[in-house]
């Protein structure tokens, strides 16, 4: 009876809870040790990966990852090494998106952060690099 009334009050309080998410708008937190580590690891790997972006062997996917686009552009002897680079890069990228969401106390943002990165990697890609758009490969 009276407790019913309190349960309604509780519901109303819960309704307001999600609104507190608005508070943190201005900037995303990206300066954590975990994110710095991933960034450093990706920056080091990029010096090896960049030649394969340029040759078109590796392309940027729509979901913020990288993939072997044209294995024939890589000499057979190097192919395994490139696959390893791509796998390691994707592991770091997934961890990066997860860590940014976690650092901002919104683990559920991970997929949106991934989608945002997907767009921005493509946008900032150098001329000649390949990226996926609407299921097709395109060249910058």
């Amino acid at each position, binding site marked *: 009876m009276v407790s019913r009334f309190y349960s309604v009050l509780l519901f109303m309080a*819960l309704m307001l809870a999600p609104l507190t*998410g*608005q508070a943190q708008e201005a900037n995303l937190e990206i300066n954590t040790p975990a994110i710095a580590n991933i960034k450093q690891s990706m920056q080091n790997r990029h010096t090896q990966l960049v030649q394969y972006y340029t040759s078109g062997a590796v392309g940027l996917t729509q979901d913020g990852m990288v993939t072997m686009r044209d294995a024939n552009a890589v000499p057979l002897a190097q192919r395994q090494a490139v696959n390893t680079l791509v796998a390691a890069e994707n592991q770091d990228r997934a961890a990066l998106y997860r860590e940014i969401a976690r650092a901002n106390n919104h683990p559920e943002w991970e997929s949106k952060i991934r989608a945002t*990165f997907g767009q921005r990697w493509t946008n900032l890609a150098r001329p000649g690099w390949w990226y996926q758009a609407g299921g097709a490969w395109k060249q910058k």
Partner: protein
Amino acid sequence: MMNNNLPSNMLPVMMGLFLSACVTINIYFPAAAAEKAADKIIEEVWQLDREKKDE
């Protein structure tokens, strides 16, 4: 007895409001801030500033 009917009628409405409030979390995803953060990280990982200076 107190007016037992009102809360039990209200519960589905409350649930609906609560769920729709949850959806607003997505609306408040800070898209502009996320883009800014992404650009900053990408510029560092790809060292875009340095490459530009080299050109």
